[in-house]
């Protein structure tokens, strides 16, 4: 589509691909995910993890915490990943641990995106003093190194329950997304339909919430996925270094205990490798899904789908 230039008529609708077109945002998202192979893989993986988290009892028959079994058993049909040093079934632990990880991922993703949207978009739209003061807050948080800050907060809270982890990660992550969303909102701010809303007498809060934010859905979903991804990594890292609650059943804590018992050296490698692998896989699932949203946001990235029809030769 040609850039709208004064005096130049623009394309009729049939020739345009609906960019932010359909109100059916979910439908559009669904289509994008289906068509992009990377995103489909990501969606499938994430779907599997969600199922595991929702129905852990169906998949793993043992309790994750019960140390009923002989220690250090190898892989077998009874214990798919063997047992750990304490006689706990590793497979069950990891299956039940999925809940904690996904909970953190989704809650942090949601909370971070929400805060970032409210602050970033409001700053962009309202401009002036509001923008400047919100920017100061955002920038201060941006400058502070994220991970050390997390460690300090978690340590200060005397070892985090899941809630503390969620709060700490959210608090330290929202500023990045806020910056991003503010930039996006700045480019959208001058669009005529926002001006039109203002001219017809809408209040600023209404314009931001109802007119502006819905046009940013693909960016918001992408932000959610990115923050969820980082939440998984950060939470697991904190748990791994012992700042999580060691009694929580989670992949990070499993890693912690594995590390404590020098699992790799004492012939229980799966104890360390399996949770690491799962963390990486879930992270990859979020990252792969994100590819679909890059494409929605920037049509230039869409791969050209070649016609399978045989081409006609020159006349």
């Amino acid at each position, binding site marked *: 589509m040609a850039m709208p230039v004064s005096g*130049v*008529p623009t394309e009729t609708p*049939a020739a345009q691909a609906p960019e932010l077109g359909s109100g059916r945002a979910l439908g559009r998202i669904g289509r994008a995910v289906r068509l992009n192979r990377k995103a489909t893989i990501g969606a499938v993986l994430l779907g599997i993890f969600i199922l595991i988290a929702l129905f852990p009892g169906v998949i793993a028959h043992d309790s994750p915490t019960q140390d009923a079994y002989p220690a250090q058993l190898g892989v077998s049909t009874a214990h798919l990943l063997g047992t750990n040093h304490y006689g706990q079934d590793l497979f069950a632990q990891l299956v039940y641990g999925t809940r904690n990880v996904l909970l953190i991922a989704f809650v942090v993703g949601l909370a971070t995106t929400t805060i970032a949207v409210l602050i970033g978009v409001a700053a962009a739209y309202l401009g002036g003093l509001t923008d400047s003061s919100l920017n100061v807050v955002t920038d201060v948080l941006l400058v502070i190194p994220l991970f050390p800050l997390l460690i300090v907060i978690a340590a200060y809270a005397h070892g985090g329950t899941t809630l503390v982890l969620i709060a700490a990660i959210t608090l330290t992550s929202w500023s990045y997304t806020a910056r991003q969303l503010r930039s996006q909102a700045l480019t959208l701010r001058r669009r005529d339909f926002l001006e039109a809303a203002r001219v017809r007498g809408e209040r600023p809060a209404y314009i931001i919430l109802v007119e502006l934010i819905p046009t940013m859905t693909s960016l918001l979903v992408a932000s959610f996925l990115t923050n969820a991804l980082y939440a998984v990594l950060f939470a697991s890292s904190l748990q791994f270094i012992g700042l999580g609650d060691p009694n929580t059943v989670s992949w990070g804590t499993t890693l912690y205990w594995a590390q404590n018992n020098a699992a790799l050296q004492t012939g229980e490698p799966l104890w360390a490798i399996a949770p690491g692998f799962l963390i990486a896989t879930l992270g990859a699932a979020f990252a792969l899904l994100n590819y679909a949203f890059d494409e929605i946001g920037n049509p230039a990235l869409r791969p050209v789908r070649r016609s399978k029809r045989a081409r006609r030769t020159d006349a």
Partner: protein
Amino acid sequence: MLEVSGLSVDYLLDRGNVRAVDDVSFTVGRGEFLGIVGESGCGKSTLLFAVAQLLAPPAEVAAGTVTFDGVNLVGLTDKQLSVMRWRDMSVVMQSAMNALNPVKTIGAQFKDAMRAHGKFTAEEIAVRSADVLKMVGIDPVHLGSYPHQLSGGMRQRSMIAMAMLFTPDLVIMDEPTSALDVVAQRSLMVQIKELQLAFGFAVIFVTHDMSLISHFSDRLMVMYAGQVDELGATKTVFDRPLHPYTQGLLEAFPSIRGPRVPLKGIPGNPPDLSRVPSGCRFRPRCPYAIDKCAEVAPDLYPLDGTLVRCLRREDGSLAS
């Protein structure tokens, strides 16, 4: 010099192929000024890109040839094309702000263009750059200016100057005046015509503004829904438009002289190219359509030196 024969361009989209240019044929002789007129969605810009071999996926040439100086350009590689690009054929794009690099001076961009198409010394480049700027009426001191420092009209002139670097045989222009105000538009058109008469190159000029081109083009080609609907000498087409669409277009221009009369315009909208109407594509909007127009898709028919795509002109049932 340029012969386009049976050219068709398809856009390969998810939902199927859309034919944006359908079986278009025309010629351009040396020093001739051909105007291509049509509204949005008619395919004129796509046609231009196809002729200049600048199509990018998902668009591709589906059929036809573009013969320039005896060589068919369709299917040539970039390397083969670069011999002829800019030296024999150059392109002026629609909006200079989009086509000019905002972080390079005009002079630097001229240098890039010259270096890309030949070996020249710095001296030669400087002299030539100053020359082309003078040709379009810009003080050569602006070689050191950035695009944003120039006015809209001056930017467009620089684009034209850049196209003139090698005095090509053919200059293709895609709506170069649309972003300009009416006075600047007029003076740019006059400038283009002067250059054309002085250097003898041919021009293909694409625009949606028929009245603008009326005084400058030798022949006029009217496009609608991807097809050529009328092609003939400019004066003839204006004085005696044959195709109902051309008639409708001409009547849609309010005049500043003469009596104030209510005008009708053309009701309806151009068709969705993925679902063209059966028979004649203009039929749903045509005041003279008959039943046969929905069944038979007309071909171009020569009538007194003008080509027209209309059944009722062919069989003579539509009186002038």
